[in-house]
């Protein structure tokens, strides 16, 4: 908690609009890191192969004359199994702490898995948490796989009637909408 408080306090000390922190959360293998990589590439940053949760990835979001730093926090997937690796457990704990501290979050769901097998309990909990947040977005990944459209329909009808952003990270389809969402967070009307 102290660390998250320090992160929060550290924002806004650079003489510009304070940094915007956004967490990517979801079940293991839902495509968080792939989405993060694709978003960073879209916004002109490097490539990351595996989950990097220790320090968020920063990128500058510009709108007109304005500029604001965005820090995206990747996280290891949440699951009902206790993670054997202590480092990943610590990263999970940090991600939970950021969610608890009220950071905006992108809820990343492999929509093909939803279409085939339904929503996991982890995703149900994240969606329940997100419904009570203003700064929350459900990102449906893996739109290029079988069952994806069935899953998307399920998400739109039962989980997030307010909005789901379908994405195919490898082809870049839908990423613009996610960026628009992030811009909306950075520059609220």
């Amino acid at each position, binding site marked *: *908690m102290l660390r998250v408080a320090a992160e929060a306090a550290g924002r806004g000390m650079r003489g510009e609009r304070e940094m915007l922190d956004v967490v990517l959360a979801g079940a293991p293998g839902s495509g968080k890191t792939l989405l993060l990589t694709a978003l960073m590439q879209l916004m002109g940053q490097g490539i990351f192969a595996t989950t990097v949760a220790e320090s968020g990835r920063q990128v500058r979001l510009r709108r007109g004359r304005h500029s604001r730093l965005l820090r995206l926090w990747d996280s*290891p997937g*949440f*699951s*009902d*199994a*206790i*993670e*054997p690796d*202590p480092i990943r*457990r*610590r990263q*999970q*704990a*940090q*991600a*939970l*702490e950021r*969610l*608890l501290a009220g950071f905006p979050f992108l809820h990343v769901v492999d929509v093909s898995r939803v279409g085939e097998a339904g929503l996991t*309990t*982890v995703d149900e*909990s*994240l969606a*329940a*948490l997100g*419904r*009570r947040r203003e700064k929350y977005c459900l990102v449906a990944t893996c739109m290029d796989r079988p069952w994806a459209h069935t899953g998307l329909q399920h998400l739109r009808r039962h989980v997030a009637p307010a909005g789901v952003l379908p994405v195919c990270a490898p082809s870049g389809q839908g990423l613009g909408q996610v960026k628009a969402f992030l811009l909306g967070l950075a520059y609220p009307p």
Partner: protein
Amino acid sequence: MATTLSPDLRHQVESGTISAGEALRRLSRLQAAPQPDVVAGRRGESPPAPSAGAAAALAELDALVGLRSVKRMVHEVQALVQIQAHRRQHGLATQLGTMHMVFSGHPGTGKTTVARIMGSLLHGMGVLSKGHMVEVERADLVGEYIGHTAQRTRDAVRRALGGVLFIDEAYSLARGGAKDFGREAIDGLVKAMEDGREQMVLILAGYPGEMEWFLLQNPGLRSRFPIHIHFPDYTAAELVEIAGIMCRGQDYHLAPEAQTFLRDFIAGAPEWFACEEGNARAVRNLVERAVRCHALRLVQKSPLTREDLMLLRRQDLEDALLTHAAGGGGSGRPGDEG
């Protein structure tokens, strides 16, 4: 509320006591705010909704460690009551029936706690007018002369009207044979169940095997208790989590090495904790003994830091187990509550 729980959740995930998914569920529940009923809201109706008391009771239940199957059963009961209320509103037949229950499980598995929550829940749902719990055992019901038992049983029932009558070790009522006054208590209870169906929920609790035997003794009993909930023994990880909660409740905390030791110890002697010694109660007794050993360890030390005063080390647990083995502490005797 969620903010104060954050260090616990974080610590539990980091130490591997609970999964991140479980922590997320708790976080989600803790941050739950009253939500409009989406389906009914679309139709502009105002369906009967559980009160804040029912929501608080469910939140208390969900915050308990483990007990997944028990929680599911209680949620089923809650859902049934709620849906029957909806059906009644639409003029449909309702079949709520009796809500008397049998709780079977070893001592210290949470039977008494869940019975108390059940009372609050049913009160919040409008099934019980008061929702309080009256806890009795054989000695409170069975009298010493003819007619005495009936009177004592009636008294217990009268005190419990509008709430829950919880009979611990209920099987002991049938233990003494045909001439035992316990039979008279059973007859009195059966009659009270028939008379005051809407006004009281009777919960019989005890060891699984004994409760099964008890229900066989009186042919009418089983059908009068439609809800059977089995309370499983806690796992080693759950008991360590319970120990952590108990410590934090008294402003102590278990050092990581102490947690590892406790988990290994429980895993190495599951029968010691799981059955006769009383699950969570055994852990509570162990923590209480460890607190005394911690005091003994520190009493000669000076100066003492705040951390010293709060931290229970592995050594304290080892000493507590040694004093237990030597007969120097509470016994964790089954049957105190449960």
